[in-house]
């Protein structure tokens, strides 16, 4: 083949491809997918796979909440995440020893619940005088003028203050609820532990609480109290010269009841970032597995057909053996016994169990080509087996190969996702299957966390659709006679 012919052929092919609307749609989708995968570190969080498994990294995110845009479709609106840094906070010093930090929070109208929790972190404390260590009060001022004492006279340390996850704070909220509704003071020991550990004790803080109301009722069915709230951290530092309190890194987070573009999972992980990063693995594995298994299958099938006779029989028996081993169970077994599995190993496994069908089809095609006169001519001229196979038969099957590669990407993507879904995957990578695996383990479907289940599967479907569209278009143009029916 001369270079000019190749160029001409390619031009002709492009002309024809342009007329295939589905193929064009597939190419556009592919370009978008590749762009999304390549830009993942810049559009989301860099080094996500390293952070994905550390639950500490995601602590400032709400857990199991839907995406923010969901509010547009529902009457029960859920507040988004709000973060305050030092410049967003009001910091005053009423006296030498006191520092008051205030955060203004607006609980907007028509939203059903307040934030999922409040987290204060980044307080840098160095105590030089332990006898006079700094202490703090934390309270919430409500639009109805009531004040909820969350913590009182607590020693200030460098740790995190977490409203909603700290049982002392939850107990204090309960005590306050009883105090307002029934007018009596109860002690820490009268607080029912069951209630404060299981129920949401943050929502009642942002709910209507009036004398005469029932505490259980408020906790179970909080009625929102909209308006401006003020979270106050009142620090008392008796020895300001020796105890240093640095506020530069302070961060106050009002955890949302909704979060970001795709919500969060049970660890508070940003699912949007996970799904964007998952596309990298999906595309790489899909393309790699289908290219490798197609190439191996082609060479195997053509060789088998060309050699013929006993060699052909023998090679076809090996093919049958591979084809009749139930692949998914064996893959699961190998995965389970290997322990740590890398992505490349998964590719290898999927290729080992994925080349047989292509080998069969290419063999039957090669059997026809083999009988043609020019092959005989080449043999008569003394061409070796390798030369005939690679130079004369394989190129004829190439167009078919391109279509097969595209058409077998979806099954490779699904196979990888299935393995990850079963918990057998590369633990250092973020994949759609693994996200779905976590969803299944946490019973996301039976709890109705659709934002956790829907997007990864849609991702798989979109990758699959992309390659099916391209593959069928290629099939139509390149193999008008050898149409796979």
């Amino acid at each position, binding site marked *: 083949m001369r270079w000019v012919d190749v160029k001409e052929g390619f031009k002709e092919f492009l002309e024809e491809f342009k007329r295939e609307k589905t193929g064009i749609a597939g190419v556009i989708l592919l370009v978008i997918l590749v762009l999304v995968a390549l830009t993942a570190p810049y559009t989301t969080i860099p080094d996500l796979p390293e952070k994905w498994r550390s639950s500490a990294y995601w602590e400032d995110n709400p857990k199991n909440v839907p995406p923010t845009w969901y509010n547009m479709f529902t009457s029960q609106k859920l507040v988004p995440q709000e973060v305050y840094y030092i410049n967003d906070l009001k910091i005053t010093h009423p006296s030498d020893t006191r520092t008051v930090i205030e955060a203004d929070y607006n609980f907007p109208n028509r939203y059903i619940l307040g934030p999922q929790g409040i987290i204060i972190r980044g307080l840098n404390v160095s105590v030089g005088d332990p006898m006079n260590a700094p202490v703090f009060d934390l309270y919430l001022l409500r639009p109805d003028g009531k004040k909820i004492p969350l913590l009182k006279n607590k020693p200030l340390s460098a740790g995190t203050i977490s409203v909603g996850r700290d049982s002392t704070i939850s107990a204090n909220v309960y005590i306050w609820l009883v105090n307002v509704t029934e007018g009596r003071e109860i002690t820490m020991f009268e607080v029912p532990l069951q209630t404060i550990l299981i129920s949401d004790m943050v929502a009642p803080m942002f709910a209507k609480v009036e004398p005469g109301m029932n505490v259980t009722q408020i906790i179970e069915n909080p009625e929102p109290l909209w308006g401006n709230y003020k979270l106050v951290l009142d620090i008392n530092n008796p020895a300001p010269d020796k105890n240093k309190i640095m506020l530069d890194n302070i961060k106050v987070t009002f955890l949302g009841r909704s979060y970001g573009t795709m919500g969060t999972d049970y660890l508070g992980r940003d699912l949007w970032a996970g799904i964007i990063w998952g596309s990298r693995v999906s595309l790489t594995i899909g393309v790699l597995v289908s290219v490798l298994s197609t190439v191996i299958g082609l060479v195997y099938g053509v060789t088998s057909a060309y050699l013929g006779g006993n060699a052909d029989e023998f090679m076809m*028996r090996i093919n*049958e*053996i591979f*084809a*009749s*081993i*139930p692949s*998914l*169970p*064996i893959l*699961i*077994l*190998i995965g*389970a*016994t290997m322990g740590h599995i890398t992505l490349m190993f998964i590719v290898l496994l999927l290729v080992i169990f994925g080349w047989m069908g292509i080998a069969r089809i290419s063999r039957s095609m090669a059997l026809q080509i083999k009988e043609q006169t020019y092959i005989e001519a080449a043999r008569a001229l003394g061409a070796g087996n390798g030369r005939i196979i690679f130079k004369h038969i394989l190129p004829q099957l190439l167009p078919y190969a391109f279509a097969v590669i595209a058409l077998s990407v*979806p099954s490779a993507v*699904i196979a990888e*996702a*299935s393995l990850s*879904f*079963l918990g057998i995957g590369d633990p250092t990578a973020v994949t759609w299957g693994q996200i*779905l695996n976590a*969803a*299944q383990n946490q019973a*996301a*479907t*039976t*709890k*109705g966390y*659709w934002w956790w*289940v*829907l997007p*990864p*599967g849609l991702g*798989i*479907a*979109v*990758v*699959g*659709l992309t390659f*099916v*569209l391209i593959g*069928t278009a290629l099939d139509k143009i390149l193999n008008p006679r050898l*149409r796979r*029916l």
Partner: protein
Amino acid sequence: MGYLKYLAFRIVNALLVLLIVTFIISALFVRVAEESNRSKMYEELMLWERTEGAKIKQSQGLEAFEQAKAAKQASLEEKYELNIPYWQKVYRKAVRTLKLDFGTTSMPIFGTNNVSDIIKVAVPRSILLFTTATIIVIILGIFLGVRAARHAGSVFDRGLSIFALLTYSLPMWWTGMMFLLIFAFKLGWFPLSSMFDPQLTGWAHVKDVLWKLALPVFTYVFVVFGGWAWTTRNIMIGTLQEDFIMAAKAKGVPEHKIIYGHALRAAAPPIVTMIIFALLGSLGGAIISELVFNYPGMGRLYWVALQQNETNLLIGLTYFFTVLYLAGVVLADMIYGFLDPRVKVGASARM
């Protein structure tokens, strides 16, 4: 004569493949079992040391204890087959498997320890679910595919093609999760788990089973029928362009008769092959789908066996799957040769 010889060749061939696959599977699983058996043996030895061994040490002294311990270890090694070389173990396991003697599980599943009995409980359940679904898929797929082929290029045909392409790229288990979310969680029409209620008997049991089958069957049909319809359509379009159809049309044979009498019969061999493999495949269940629906069939059993490291059950199940596949290959070849005379000619010519 050609046909019988061809058939015999195919059967012998399948048996040969089965033999080799059984050895491969045994080699794999024996390797897995070896480690768990070793740890089981040491556990048992430790237990013996603490109870009987301690007694011997007290009454007969350290030397007698060492001797008794060695004897105990040897007997345990024999029990767990740790004293024979790897390849011999593989051979023994493979021979036993070929004789359908799968052994027992360490923990009872479905109330029994016998692997064969466990499989006998699970297979009908998978058949119930997947065979029902496959039959619906076949009927729906062929009917819709033929319709699309008759009106090739119509809105219906295009719609069907797009639907088929879309569902082809969907993992079935994910679709199952979505349907659980929509139909079981949101709308509450179906149960969230398809595990049968063991307390029910008689009519109540039938109703329970039907109700729990509904969503998995619907999911399966939804994901698979598009592909079937599309394949049938493609085969039919190819057939409809052949000369004998043209001739029949020219003769004035009614269209209905051309489609179902002539064309579908000519297109039958590949479709029949597809049907055989689909039906046989349905016996195996689908591991992940059964897991998602929490359905107590073969697939879920496989998963449970893996989780609990029940090697004997795993070998039994894998053997079952392999036999099914090879039976399908032979059956498909048989029917193919029966329906399509060209195959016989080709095969006997090669003989």
